[in-house]
């Protein structure tokens, strides 16, 4: 794939969503010193929560599994510090909701369990997957889907795509990982290809990261089956379906998975975690988080132990400049507000954004002037103005008919709306309403995707 040609998805999208990455994209990742207390939730993934495997008073080491589940869709969690388990109880997450968490007091010794290195080139796909599973790797781009399940697609796939678009404003963790650890990412990609039987791997990078592109191209130069696809900087280029469309020019049918078009998509950080798990035997207990926003004193990219309270991360970065207009767990387009500063950093948190009043925008809910900016912007080709209205008024049948379930919640409709309507919020409500209806009616599901 020629890296001089920029690829993009044809429908919708917006190129004027600001990047705002200059504060952190040039800053190397720093290790955040482990906090004195970590709070590790039992659910940091899509699927069933883990069951605690330790009890209060147990001594644990870094990398020790703390919880797992027999459920199919699950990923174990591991200790990120060594020390004593002081509590196993519901603790508030960043969102304010409570989840059963294992609280460990750090003894400062950083003792680790023994890691088992390996060579994926000599391992079977099953073995690779097992290692990935044992390492508790989930989609670290924010979705949190257990990686080992993704590496076992129901259909044969021929392409692994690495989602290095990072289209979310402010976030630069993937960018820095590529600049600093491109070979590790490549290793992880190759391991994933082995596990899935894919014949080619393509790393899709947005054109605003030339240094990353250069590093990755250098890292893959000896691998014929790998290539870099340079992507137009257009939000939401990093949305999975849009990425697939841009790179391999296939549309994932509604309700289906990427595997149905022969692809598996993984995040940069996930690929590196796979490398660490398979090659180094290191489980997932830390991740890079971008701390940014106009209200941060010292924005930077930090490597954070899972379970570190958000407050600790902010303190490390110099704290906040007064009360920010909004503090977001992630980026401003898709990230939820952080409501509890002592909520822990989890595997899926890619950024903490503290926005000032000038940077942030909020709902005003003026009347819809039918300007169709949302219709033109929606990457899924929906009509968010109607969808939002129907969903808000709980007309879930109409919302379903207008295919609310296809919304990827990228936030672009609200972003472009001149009336500042809470479109995404309403559509989320509509989706929940439809799902609830579905659950109420016992429908016989007919799978369209064979």
């Amino acid at each position, binding site marked *: 794939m020629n890296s001089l040609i920029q690829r993009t998805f044809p429908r919708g999208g917006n190129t004027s*969503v600001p990047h705002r990455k200059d504060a952190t994209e040039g800053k190397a990742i720093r290790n955040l010193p482990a906090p004195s207390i970590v709070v590790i939730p039992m659910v940091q993934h899509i699927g069933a929560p883990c069951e605690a495997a330790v009890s209060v008073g147990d001594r644990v080491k870094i990398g020790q599994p703390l919880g797992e589940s027999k459920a199919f869709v699950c990923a174990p969690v591991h200790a990120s510090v060594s020390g004593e388990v002081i509590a196993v109880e519901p603790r508030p997450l960043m969102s304010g909701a409570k989840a059963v968490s294992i609280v460990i007091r750090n003894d400062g010794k950083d003792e680790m369990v023994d890691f088992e290195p390996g060579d994926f080139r000599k391992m079977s796909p099953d073995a690779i997957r097992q290692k990935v599973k044992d390492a508790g790797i989930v989609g670290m781009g924010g979705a949190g889907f257990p990686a080992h399940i993704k590496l076992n697609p129901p259909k044969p796939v021929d392409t692994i795509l690495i989602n290095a678009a990072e289209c979310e404003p402010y976030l630069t963790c993937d960018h820095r990982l590529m600049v600093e650890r491109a070979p590790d990412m490549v290793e992880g990609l190759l391991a994933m290809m082995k596990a899935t039987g894919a014949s080619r791997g393509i790393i899709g990078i947005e054109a605003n990261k030339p240094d990353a592109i250069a590093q990755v191209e250098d890292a893959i130069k000896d691998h014929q089956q790998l290539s870099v696809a340079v992507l137009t900087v257009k939000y939401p280029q990093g949305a999975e379906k849009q990425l697939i469309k841009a790179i391999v020019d296939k549309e994932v049918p509604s309700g289906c998975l990427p595997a149905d078009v022969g692809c598996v998509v993984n995040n940069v950080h996930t690929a590196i975690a796979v490398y660490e798990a398979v090659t180094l035997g290191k489980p997932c207990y830390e991740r890079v988080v971008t701390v940014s926003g106009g209200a941060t004193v010292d924005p930077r990219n930090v490597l954070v132990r899972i379970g570190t309270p958000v407050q600790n991360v902010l303190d490390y970065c110099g704290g906040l400049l007064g*009360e920010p207009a909004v503090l977001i767990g992630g980026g401003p387009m898709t990230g939820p507000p952080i409501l509890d500063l002592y909520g822990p950093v989890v595997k899926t948190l890619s950024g903490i954004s503290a926005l000032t009043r000038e940077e942030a*925008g909020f709902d005003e809910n003026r009347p819809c002037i039918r*300007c169709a900016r949302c219709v033109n912007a929606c990457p899924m080709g929906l009509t968010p103005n109607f969808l939002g209205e129907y969903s808000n008024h709980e007309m879930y049948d109409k919302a379903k008919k207008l295919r609310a379930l296809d919304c990827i919640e990228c936030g672009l409709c609200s972003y472009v709306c001149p009336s500042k309507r809470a479109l995404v919020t309403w559509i989320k409500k509509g989706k929940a309403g439809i799902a609830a209806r579905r659950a109420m009616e016992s429908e016989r599901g007919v799978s369209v995707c064979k």
Partner: protein
Amino acid sequence: MQVKTGPFLRDNVTIKRVMIDVLIALIPTMIAGVLLYGRHALVVLFLSTLSAVLTEAILTRAPFTIKGIFGDGSAAVTGALLGLILPHTTPFWVPIFGAFFAIALVKLAFGGLGYNIFNPALAARALLLLAYTSVMIYRTDAVTGATPLWSSNTVSWPLILGNVDGVIGETSVVAILLGAAYLFYKGHINWRIPVSCLGSAFVLAMIWGLDPWHTIAAGGLMFAAFFMATDMVTSPVTPVGELIFGAGCGLLTFMIRQYTPFPEGVTFAVLIMNALTPAIDSLTIPAVFGVGASYKTRVQGFVVTTVAVLAVFGVLVAIEYQEPEVQPVITHRHYLPIHDLLGDPDFDIVDVGETRYYVVRDEENNPLQAALIAERNGFNGPVYFLVILQPDHTIKSVQVLEHRESPGFGELITRASFLEQFVGLDKDSPFTVGSDVQTVSGATISSTAVITGVARALDDFDAAFFKVDELVQYTDGTYVGQTNSFGGPMEVEVVVAGGKITSVEVVKHSDTPGFSDGAITGVPDRIVAANSPKVDAVSGATLSSEAIMRAVENALESASSGSNDEVFEGVTAPARSSWKITVGDGTYQGQARGFGGDLILDVTVSGGKITDIVVVKDSETPFIAGAAFKELLPALIEAQGPVDAVSGATVTSGAIHDAVRDALDIKEGQ
């Protein structure tokens, strides 16, 4: 921190910014309109914008600050747009009321911004067009060619740059495109509606054999395509929907222009499409990513579209072939269903002099029914009226088309009770004001204008169609004719060849050079062209013209085999002589009964000729009599004898003559 929901980034476009951008985009058009039409246009624009803004501010109880009153700017946009689609000649209450209606009823009553179904500015214009037509159609003095849609068929530079009759905003294509370019640049409009709107009109014009560029450049279509049809609230949100909407606007505009009497169709075309917008939206919901239309659906869509296009085209063609091409006659702000009035769709249009006749002919090509439009000066300006004649050439009806007479007084000439009197009269009927035909009390001058105008019109009709030269065959030869013109004897030479007059030449005359030249050169040509000595006089040289005609008539007396004794209307005596003055030099006073009372003149005689006439007392109608005095008195002195009455002041003219004769003791007929 409050609990809010994402996303937490917003593009910096707001409703207010969009509206301000639209206002900016309208500036070139506004400037062009004011430059073309002047101060009046600026006032209209200002009033409509102000009225719209204030209406919305008051009805929505906006805070009483500049910012509050301006609001989100949408009212100002509506006001500006409305001002730009009004003619600059409208009275000031029109933009005020129109803007009020647009905001209060078409927008706010439906729920305010975002809820209205119809474009408020266009709906207001439609209301004004239908209820107050007279103030809405741009006034022009031509009987035909009211707006460029009816006149030239080519696009001319004035049309592009703006120098043509129409509403304030529609005339300068350059200004419109400039503004549209700004809106495109700002991303507030996209190409779909303008291109489909102008494109469909273009294509239809080509198919119908009309000039497509003229079709899209004239009549407000371009302005509507970029500024009206693109109004976000009232147009579809889906891409395909926008294409259908635009195409519909273009199609309906074309059809309304072609098949209805309205001078422009854009207003109603867009309003109709506004009504269809919700339906169009629900029928054109785009295909979602990952949901492909099945082959069957695609085929269906293609077939339906093709059938629809063919059906529409077929209907248009069928209409064209079914109905005979009816020439819509629009004149003086009235649509005249000539074919209904004459009872026959098969009529000829004949221009004689400056009058246009609509004539139904019989098998021998003689005129049967006829309709004509004539004018006569009334109290405040010309009065245009329509006369319909029966096959026996008696009047079937008289109708006043346009006038500027005073409301409550002269305006009453439009009353049936006045106009009914004309029914059944013909050219030989007496038309004496006050006895044969009654005036409207309090509106003497206006009534007289109509009465004399109708009488004159009948005579003209007779002259136009029944003095046909086929009746008269002249014997070949060269003839000389003589008569007395007002300056002295006049002699003409007439050559007849092949039974027709081939040349007329004035060989001798003593008329005033400069005044009579027009007649000397013009009348002979007319006589040759008409093959008849009875032609229109050259205005400003009536006496000379009539003298030439008399002389030719005399010359041909021996040449013609047909009867030649029709009385020439307007000439009271075959030969005009000057008065024989028997009194000595001095000043004599004469009196006569005028129109409003006694008329007393002082006539000065010096050297055996009348040298001065002064009005001592009169009770004539000021406006009319003024003209009579101004024209007649010098003419009398010039002619030293009786002269033509001044049109519209017959009685006064006659009174002046009587008074002079009374002063000089000249008997009638001397």
